């Protein structure tokens, strides 16, 4: 909320000066307008009254209404009279208001639109597309009228400008700033506030960021689009994580089931048989020979049990892994070679000092790869090579002469999804120790698995 009130004060401080200036400019404009109006009214009144008194003192007007200029001036008065810089027109009308004499501008106005011209007081009227401040005064006992007017259309630009331009300009600038601030709010600040509120309350990984309905500016819209994408990626990541967790739990359960079954089918049956034999050996009616035979059998069964338990231990986590990778791999490959009837050629740099996690990873990869080569590739020969490469990294290569497979058909993630975890397990083990696994294989050309640890 503190940030929001800060935003409010910033906006207010940006908005206040233009609003203040706008109000001042508007007041100034209003008073200027008023002053100009009263000044021009006064001017037109004085001017018209002067003409009227001039006419009263003997301007020759004939009986039939012809106007004679005894002073030889003012004939053809179609030009405005210029007093100072204000364009002023006058006209003489008869009692009925018909135009007798004067400037053509006024003649047009009076003859065409017969405006209601105020007497003695100047007022602004609009006629024939023009604005006049206009008045009329009677003379010759009301037989004639003098009409005086100034036309606003003819007031030179600079004069009008000097009066109206500055306040108008300032007012419009202020208005424009206020408008810009509003626009800034609508297109930038409001969308950002909306975004902030949405992002902070979003349930990441479960819902995407909703679309913005208003009209945000391009940058904000881009930020919004990016955040929408991020929220979608978060959902996807969460989904993948759940799938992986699920798989992990499944694998764990599968392993437990398998171990449980192995113990049940192997040692548990053996020990049960062992107990039976001991019972048989203790039967009171046994001959000495019977007892000896049962004990011999019991011993045999016990040996079998021990062997099965060793095999189970080796399968789960061979204790001899602690001897180091070189010896562990030797033991493993010798066992696998006997078990599967394949030839395994193990070449390794025995000077390599590897951590426990790396040892375990390489051990499991070799174990898995050899099993795969035999089971899926029906390989007869397998070459395993572990060495430090030219870049100083450690390279584990397992090459076989089996059928091979087309790696392009599927990638390890798909295989994993189909329940074939072998390749993806090897890949994950390499990734976990910070390396990479490459699988190079073509159908009919054997398979090559290469683990590279930088």
């Amino acid at each position: 909320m503190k940030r929001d009130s800060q935003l409010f004060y910033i906006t207010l401080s940006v908005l206040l000066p233009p609003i203040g200036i706008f109000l001042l400019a508007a007041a100034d404009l209003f008073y200027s307008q008023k002053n100009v109006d009263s000044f021009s009214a006064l001017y037109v009144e004085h001017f018209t009254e002067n003409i009227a008194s001039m006419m009263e003192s003997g301007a020759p007007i004939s009986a039939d209404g012809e106007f004679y200029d005894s002073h030889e001036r003012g004939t053809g008065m179609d030009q405005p009279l210029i007093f100072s810089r204000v364009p002023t027109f006058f006209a003489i009308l008869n009692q009925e208001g018909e135009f007798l004499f004067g400037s053509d501008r006024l003649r047009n106005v009076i003859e065409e639109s017969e405006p209601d011209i105020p007497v003695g007081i100047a007022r602004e009227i609009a006629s024939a597309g023009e604005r006049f401040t206009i008045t009329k005064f009677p003379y010759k006992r009301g037989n004639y009228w003098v009409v005086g007017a100034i036309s606003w259309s003819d007031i030179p630009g600079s004069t009008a400008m000097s009066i109206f331009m500055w306040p108008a300009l300032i007012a419009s600038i202020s208005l424009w700033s206020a408008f810009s601030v509003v626009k800034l709010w609508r297109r930038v600040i409001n969308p950002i506030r909306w975004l902030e509120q949405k992002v902070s309350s979003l349930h990441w990984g479960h819902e995407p960021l909703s679309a913005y309905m208003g009209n945000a500016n391009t940058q904000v819209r881009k930020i919004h689009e990016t955040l929408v994408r991020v929220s979608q990626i978060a959902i996807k990541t969460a989904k993948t994580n759940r799938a992986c967790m699920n798989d992990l739990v499944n694998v764990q359960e599968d392993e437990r089931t398998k171990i449980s079954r192995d113990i049940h089918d192997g040692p548990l049956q053996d020990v049960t048989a062992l107990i039976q034999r001991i019972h048989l050996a203790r039967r009171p009616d046994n001959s000495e020979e019977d007892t000896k035979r049962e004990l011999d059998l019991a011993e045999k069964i016990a040996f079998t049990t021990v062997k099965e338990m060793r095999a189970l231990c080796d399968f789960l986590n061979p204790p001899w892994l602690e001897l180091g990778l070189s010896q562990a791999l030797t033991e493993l490959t010798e066992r696998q070679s006997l078990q599967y009837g394949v030839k395994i050629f193990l070449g390794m740099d025995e000077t390599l000092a590897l951590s426990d996690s790396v040892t375990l990873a390489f051990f499991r990869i070799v174990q898995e790869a050899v099993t795969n080569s035999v089971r899926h590739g029906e390989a007869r020969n397998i070459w395993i090579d572990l060495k430090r490469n030219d870049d100083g990294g450690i390279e584990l290569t397992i090459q076989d002469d089996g059928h091979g497979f087309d790696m392009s058909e599927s990638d390890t993630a798909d295989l994993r999804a189909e329940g074939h975890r072998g390749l993806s397990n090897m890949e994950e083990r390499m990734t976990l120790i910070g390396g990479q696994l490459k699988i190079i294989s073509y159908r009919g050309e054997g398979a090559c698995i290469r683990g590279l640890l930088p």
Partner: protein
Amino acid sequence: MSINLILADDHPLTRAGLMAYLAKEQDFNVIGEYSDGDSALAGIRELKPQVALLDIRMPGLDGVSITRKIKEEALPVVALMLTSYDAQQYVLSSLRAGARGYVLKSSSADTLSRAIRIVARGGLYLDSEVANTVEEGENMSPEPISAREREVLLLAAKGLSGKEIASQLFISERTVQTHLASIYDKLGARNKTESMLLALKYGVVMLEELLD
């Protein structure tokens, strides 16, 4: 002449069974019984038994490490490994550390007694189960291997590859493979490790030569 022994095994049931085996022999004198590696080493240092029966996996120091300590400290004690594991690499590691014998816990009382007597005399005893042979009497001797084959075996034991052995002996890699195959055949071994263990067992090579 009686033999002084100590026994180190963390599993109470197997320890009791082994003690029962040993008690039957008049000339065995068990002077110490331990359930972890550290107290076993302390006992060995203090009591200096002739033979120490050591389990490989124990809490604290493991059997192989104790054996190494005995060798380092030049104690007048012979280490005999007594374990549940038949991994040949364990046998090799124990021998490299200085053990003179390797017996599986599932062996009979007679086998154990014989092994103790052999190592106490300064001999080498390897359980028949770890070097896959049918026991045919104590003095069963294999078909003699040639001097060249012996050389190849010793180099292979040091961890040299076929190619390296070939270049060292100035023969072809193929000849090396032929020699090895012949060695395996004569000793009845199925792989390199087994051939080494069997060669030791039969006295074809001496422990010191092999482990140098």
